C-alpha cells in the first residue's frame, strides 16, 4: 500500500504509534555521518563493505572437539598430570556410576525382551556424557533431561530402588505409576520428571533458569544455582530448541544446554537432520558461549560442564551450550531395531573403537586404581543388586486406582469425583471383569 493511499484512510484507522519505544531502540545511536559501520538496532557493530561476498558455511573452520584423554585412556592435554581437579575416589565413583547404568541397561533391555516391562531405553555409549556432566553440577542445581540420561539420575543419587520403582510403575514410584518406563524424576536434587515430547524442556529450562536468577537477586544468601538442560541432536530440530536458546540469550538465563549428539534420531542420521556444523554452530548464532566436547571422554565432559556452569553464573547469568559427541551404539529403544537402517558392522566398529566406560577404565588401570578382579567383582555385585531390586519392585503393589484422577488439577474436580464414583459402580457391578487386587486398596481407593 502506498503512502498516499494510507493518507486517504480515515484517521481512526491509522495504527497508533507505540507509546514507548523499546529500550534497545532508544539506546542505539543514530547513524553518524561518515561512520564506517552500521548502527542499526538489529546489527549494532557491522562494518560497511563494498565487497559483495556471501558467507559460506563451508569456508568456515569446523568447531573443534575438546578432549582431555585419547581413546587409549592417555592424557593428551599439555602439562596434564591430573586429568581434572578431582580425587581418585570421586573418579572411581564416576566409573562405578557409568558401570551401574550399563549393567542395569543390559538387564532391563533383556527383561523387556522377555515381556517383564513394556519399554526400555538404554544409554549405551552415552554414559560418559550424563555422568560426567552431572558430576559438575551441585545438588541445588535443577535438571531438565530428555530420556537417555539415566547416568544423570545415577550420579545425582537416584538409587536402584528408585530406578526399579519407576520402571515397574509401582506404588513407590515418584511418578505415581503414570509414566512410561525411563521417565524418571526426583524432587531433590531437582530432576524434573521426563516428558516424552522432544525439546519441550528446552524453553522450560530457560524459564526455570530465569526463576533461579531472580531468586538469587531477591535473596543473595541462597547458593547460586543453574539449570542443566539435556537433549539430543534430533530434538534440536524442533522449534522449541530455537525458542529456548534465543529466549535464554535475551534474558541472560543461567542455563547450560547439553546436547548429546549421538548421530541418530531413531533412524534419521544427522545428514538428514541438519547441514550446518552440528548443534554447536547454532549457539554462536544466538550469541551463546559454546563448546564441543568428546562425549566419550568423561574428563572433558566434566571439565567443560564445570566451566560452563561457572560462565553461566558470570555477569548475573548467561546461557552456555555444550555439544557432546558420542555415537549411539544402542537401538533407539526396545521398540526399535536399528539394523533396519544401519549396518551392524558400523555399530560393532564404534563399540570396539571407543566407549566412555572402557576409556576411563584404561586410565584407571594405568593409574593402578582398577584391575580385572575389581571389574569382575564390581559387575557381579551390581548385577546382584539390580536383580534384587528388580524382583522387589516387580512384586510391589501398584498405586491406588484413585491416582488416575488425582493431580490433573490441584484438587480433584467435581466432575472427576463423579467419574470416580461411576468407575467404582462399574467395578463393583462387574467384579469378574477387573482384577484390582494388584492396586493398593483395590476398589476402596475410589
Amino acid at each position, binding site marked *: 500500500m502506498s503512502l498516499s493511499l494510507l493518507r486517504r484512510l480515515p484517521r481512526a484507522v491509522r495504527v497508533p504509534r507505540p507509546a514507548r519505544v523499546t529500550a534497545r531502540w532508544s539506546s542505539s545511536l543514530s547513524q553518524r555521518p561518515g561512520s564506517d559501520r552500521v548502527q542499526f538496532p538489529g546489527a549494532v557493530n557491522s562494518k560497511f563493505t563494498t565487497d559483495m561476498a556471501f558467507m559460506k558455511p563451508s569456508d568456515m573452520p569446523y568447531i573443534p572437539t575438546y578432549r582431555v584423554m585419547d581413546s587409549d585412556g592417555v592424557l593428551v592435554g599439555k602439562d596434564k598430570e591430573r586429568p581434572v581437579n578431582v580425587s581418585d575416589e570421586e573418579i572411581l565413583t564416576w566409573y562405578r556410576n557409568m558401570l551401574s547404568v550399563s549393567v542395569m541397561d543390559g538387564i532391563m533391555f533383556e527383561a523387556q525382551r522377555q515381556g517383564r*516391562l513394556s519399554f526400555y531405553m538404554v544409554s549405551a555409549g552415552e554414559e560418559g556424557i550424563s555422568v560426567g556432566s552431572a558430576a559438575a553440577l551441585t545438588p541445588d542445581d535443577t535438571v531438565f533431561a530428555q530420556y537417555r540420561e539415566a547416568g544423570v539420575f545415577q550420579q545425582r543419587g537416584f538409587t536402584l530402588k528408585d530406578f526399579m520403582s519407576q520402571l515397574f510403575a509401582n506404588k513407590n514410584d515418584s511418578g505415581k505409576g*503414570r509414566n512410561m518406563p525411563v521417565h524418571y524424576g526426583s524432587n531433590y536434587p531437582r530432576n524434573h520428571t521426563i516428558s516424552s515430547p522432544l525439546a519441550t524442556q528446552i524453553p522450560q529450562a530457560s524459564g526455570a533458569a530465569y526463576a533461579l536468577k531472580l531468586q538469587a537477586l531477591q535473596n543473595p544468601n541462597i547458593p547460586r544455582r543453574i539449570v542443566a538442560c539435556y537433549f539430543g541432536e534430533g530434538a534440536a530440530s524442533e522449534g522449541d530448541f530455537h525458542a529456548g536458546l534465543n529466549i535464554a540469550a535475551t534474558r541472560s538465563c543461567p542455563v547450560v544446554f547439553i546436547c548429546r549428539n549421538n548421530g541418530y*534420531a531413531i533412524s534419521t542420521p544427522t545428514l*538428514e537432520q541438519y547441514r550446518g556444523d552440528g548443534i554447536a554452530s547454532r549457539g554462536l548464532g544466538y550469541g551463546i558461549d559454546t563448546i564441543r566436547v568428546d562425549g566419550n571422554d568423561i574428563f572433558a565432559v566434566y571439565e567443560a560442564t564445570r566451566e560452563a556452569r561457572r560462565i553461566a553464573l558470570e555477569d548475573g547469568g548467561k546461557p552456555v551450550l555444550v555439544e557432546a559427541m558420542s555415537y549411539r551404539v544402542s537401538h533407539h529403544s526396545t521398540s526399535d531395531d536399528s539394523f533396519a537402517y544401519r549396518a551392524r558392522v558400523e555399530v560393532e566398529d564404534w563399540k570396539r573403537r571407543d566407549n566412555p566406560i572402557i576409556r576411563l577404565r584404561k586410565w584407571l588401570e594405568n593409574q593402578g586404581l582398577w584391575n580385572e578382579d575389581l571389574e569382575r567383582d564390581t559387575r557381579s555385585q551390581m*548385577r546382584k543388586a539390580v536383580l534384587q531390586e528388580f524382583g522387589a519392585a*516387580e512384586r510391589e503393589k501398584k498405586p491406588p486406582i484413585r491416582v488416575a484422577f488425582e493431580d490433573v488439577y490441584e484438587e480433584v474436580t467435581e466432575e472427576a469425583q463423579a467419574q470416580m464414583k461411576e468407575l467404582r459402580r462399574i467395578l463393583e457391578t462387574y467384579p469378574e471383569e477387573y482384577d484390582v487386587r494388584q492396586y493398593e486398596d483395590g476398589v476402596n481407593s475410589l
Partner: protein
Amino acid sequence: MIPRSPLQRLLRNPPCRRYSAAPTPSSRLNLPIDYKSTPLLHHTASSVPRAYGLPESTTSKSLNLYQAINSALRTALSTSDKVLLFGEDVAFGGVFRCSMDLQTEFGSERVFNTPLTEQGIVGFAIGAAAEGMKPIAEIQFADYVFPAFDQIVNEAAKFRYREGGTGGNAGGMVVRMPCGAVGHGALYHTQSPEALFAHVPGVQVVMPRSPAQAKGLLLSSIFQHNNPVIFMEPKILYRAAVEHVPNEYYTIPLSKAEVLKPGNNVTVISYGQPLYLCSAAITAIEKSMPGVSIELIDLRTIYPWDRPTVLESVKKTGRAIVVHESMINYGVGAEVAATIQDGAFLRLEAPVKRVAGWSTHTGLQYEKFIMPDVARIYDAIKQTLEY
C-alpha cells in the same frame, strides 16, 4: 554380557506380558478382541467387491492396517506424480512400517525423511499443497502433533478462507498420524486428539476402523477432496486388524457414516478401534436380552460429520450411545449427543449416553480403568434400554 544364569533364574517364567491389562480368568465381557472372527472385518475375499462397489472380478489381498496404508500410499504415489510422502523416519519405512519400500520404489525426491520438527513438516505440506502438489505428511504419533497445531489451526484450516478470490488453498494435503491406546503408551503414546481438530472448521478429520476402510478413505482424502485432511490411524490396529483389501484404486466417500449393523432398540455411534468393543458388547447384550437388537454406526469422518445418517437411525431406535476413547469432556460425544437432542428430541426414550475416556490423562497403570471397555459399553446399553 548379561549373566545368563541369575537373570534367567529371575526371569524363569516363560515370556509373558505382565504389564499388560490381561483379562481376569473369570472375564466374560472384557476379553481380548478376537480380530479373526469379528464381524467388522472382511475375512474372505468374496464379500469385498460388493462392499466397495467394485466389479466382481476385483482381486484382493489379506492385509493388516499398516500394510493397507502402505498399499494406499503406493497406489497414490503411482497414480499421480504430485503425491509426496514425508515425515520423521519415513525413508526406512516409518516406525510403524507404513512407508516400507516406498522410497526405493518412488525415489528420495518424493519419499523422504524430514528433520524432527512437526511444525516444519505440516507447514512444509501446506506450502507444497498451495503450489499444487499433493503432500502426505506423517506425524510419528498423534501425541506429537501439537507443535504443528498453529500450522493446522491458523494456516491449513483458514488458507482457502483467507485467500478468497485468489483461489489459493492447501486442499491437497493429508496429515497422517497414528493415534489411540495400546495398553502401555501412558501419557504420550496414547492420545486421540480428534476432538481438538474437529473443533476447527476447515480441516476434515477422518479415522478408519479397518484395513480396507483405511485404504479407501486415505485415497479419497488424497484425490477426491480438495480440503486439508487429518487422517488418524488407530495404531493398535496396525498389526491386529487383518482383512481382505482390494488391490486396485478405490475410494470411500468422506463425511459419510456407515451403518455396520442394523437394529431397532438402541443406536451405538462410534469410530476407530472402540467399534470392536461396541460390536462385542452388542453381541453380549443381544444374547442376554433376547428380542433386543442394536444398531451400530461408524462415523468414519469425525468432521464434517454425517448428521443425517445418525439422526435417521436415532429417530428409528429412540435411544443413542456415543463411544470413543478420548476424554469425555468437550469430546466428539458431546457434539453428537447435542445434535441428537436437537434433531430427534421427541423420539428419544432415554438420555443420550456417552461412554468415553474419563476426564484425565492416561496414566500407565490406569489405562484399563480410563478407556471404554466392553463391560462399560454393555452397562451403558443395558441402562439405556432399562431407562
